């Protein structure tokens, strides 16, 4: 874990029709750390990820990526800086095959796509990295299937494969284990463990076992604000956090 800041968030605000979803949030994310963001439902975690990836634009505040102000940069330009995102609610292209979904992710990083003649799906430069990403998440056997009808767990794996295929330096994972059973979820966590250290990961997660197993640091969000940031031990011990959020579950979740 390096000590330099990869993503600086300063005084961020975002409200929807008068309701503040992000309410003055300040946070520094360090190079190559796994930074977990936890908080109760509606705390603004997904909204935060959206503001950081350009899907929505903040009302006020500043987002700095490696010294560069990206607050208002359109979403489609951010992946070219090395950012990638997975969605809490699975967002894939349902009418394409699994492989085509991942090929598109590879294509996004492989220069422009104003190439009109050669077939993309037989291009080794695209399919090889795509198959590698699929193998990494254990979905290579389903490569040729249409993505839509696959199971929820497989959709989640595909989400992650699309993130990995872009070979990002900063990854936002919005509840990668959302809706997964025990087994799938354990597999997902060990997969994420293998990514640890090679890139920066901002992990939004409700599963406390996963969070405490993976995170280098944890930020607790309540009502659009970061009420505490620190190592798992510090967060575990923080009285404010216990009172505001973790409460009784804390003892069972953290053991």
């Amino acid at each position: 874990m390096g000590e330099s800041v990869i993503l600086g968030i300063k005084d961020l605000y975002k409200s929807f029709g008068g309701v503040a979803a992000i309410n003055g949030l300040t946070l520094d994310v360090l190079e190559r750390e796994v930074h977990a963001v936890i908080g109760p439902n509606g705390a603004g975690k997904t909204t935060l990820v959206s503001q950081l990836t350009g899907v929505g634009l903040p009302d006020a505040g500043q987002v700095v990526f490696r010294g560069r102000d990206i607050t208002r940069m359109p979403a489609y330009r951010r992946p070219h800086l090395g950012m990638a995102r997975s969605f809490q609610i699975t967002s894939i292209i349902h009418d394409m095959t699994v492989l085509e979904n991942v090929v598109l992710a590879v294509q996004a990083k492989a220069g422009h796509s104003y190439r009109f003649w050669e077939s993309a799906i037989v291009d080794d430069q695209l399919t090889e990295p795509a198959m590698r990403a699929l193998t990494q998440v254990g979905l290579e056997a389903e490569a040729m299937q249409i993505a839509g009808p696959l199971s929820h767990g497989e959709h989640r794996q595909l989400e992650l494969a699309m993130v990995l295929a872009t070979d990002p330096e900063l990854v936002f994972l919005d509840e990668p284990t959302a809706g997964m059973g025990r087994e799938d979820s354990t597999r997902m966590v060990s997969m994420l463990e293998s990514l640890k250290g090679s890139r920066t990961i901002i992990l939004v997660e409700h599963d406390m076992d996963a969070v405490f197993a993976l995170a280098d640091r944890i930020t607790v969000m309540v009502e659009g604000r970061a009420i505490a940031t620190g190592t798992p031990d510090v967060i575990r011990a923080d009285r404010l956090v216990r009172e505001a959020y973790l409460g009784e579950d804390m003892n069972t979740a953290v053991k």
Partner: protein
Amino acid sequence: MKSLTLRGWVTLIGLVVLALLPVFINRQLPLTILQQWPWLGGHFDFVTFLTGQEFYLVLATRLVILAIAAVSLNLILGYGRMISFGHAAYLGIGAYAVGIPAYYEIYNGFIHIGIAVVVSAAFAFLTGLVCLRTRGVNFIMITMAFSMMVFFAFVSIEEYGGDDGLVIEVRSEFGQWVNLENDTVLYYVCFVSLLGILYLIRRIVHSRFGMVIQGARGNEGRMQSLGFDTFRYRLVCYVIAGALCGYAGALLGNFTSFISPEMMDWTRSGELIFMVVLGGTSSLFGPVLGASLFILLEEILSGFWLYWQLIFGIFLILVVLFAKGGIDSWLGRRPER
């Protein structure tokens, strides 16, 4: 070679019929042999039925030209889910790109087609900048509005006949090799153009560019999060479709010898949409099948009832409601995934 499906057979037979049609009509081959076949000659004299009937060549030429227009519309409508209700504007632009130079006695076909393609592309680019920022019904309305602007522009230009239209006396000239004044030659130019454009679209659809367009159809937000500027890719796609349809318009201008703003009326755009939907969106040959059925039905129905458009309209609505995927899916293509 893989064995052909029913759909493959229909496509193949359709193309062969289109390719050989003028041969039958012009009696240029020893078709008398055919006439002597007992199973033909005895019951129905197919050859005399067709031969010498210029009418069928005219019908087929119109069919092929409209098929090109429908195929170009399908690139944006089927593969990109950009439901343009103004595509006939490009047919008009292309036709006037033949008519207006001819009015000034410029008959060079390369100039005609050059103007048709470039002006259509430019029109698609400028209007695309605006309408591609909208979605759904708004997109439909704005594309229609732009096409009506062109319609009224031509209605108001008295020099070129206004709403009375313009008569084209001489067809485009392409040197000594291709003489469009000959109806059979014109037909084959159209037919070969259709084949070429089908091949082009096939390449585009499977290319990296085509993947982006189809990805944006399925999930635009995700495509942006992956790093694609979907607006620009869509714009380029919109321009390609416009340019191709402009080319079809130049062929139409040669074919009809009389052009008028009515060619780009919104009802004409609606007909193109129906051809695409009828045949099956986002299938390569679907629009060709759709255009064929459209033209044939129009011909048959208008033959025996004045209010044929009524039946036709009901038929089309039924197709849209009940035959998702169009004719193409009845013929064994799995419905849109």
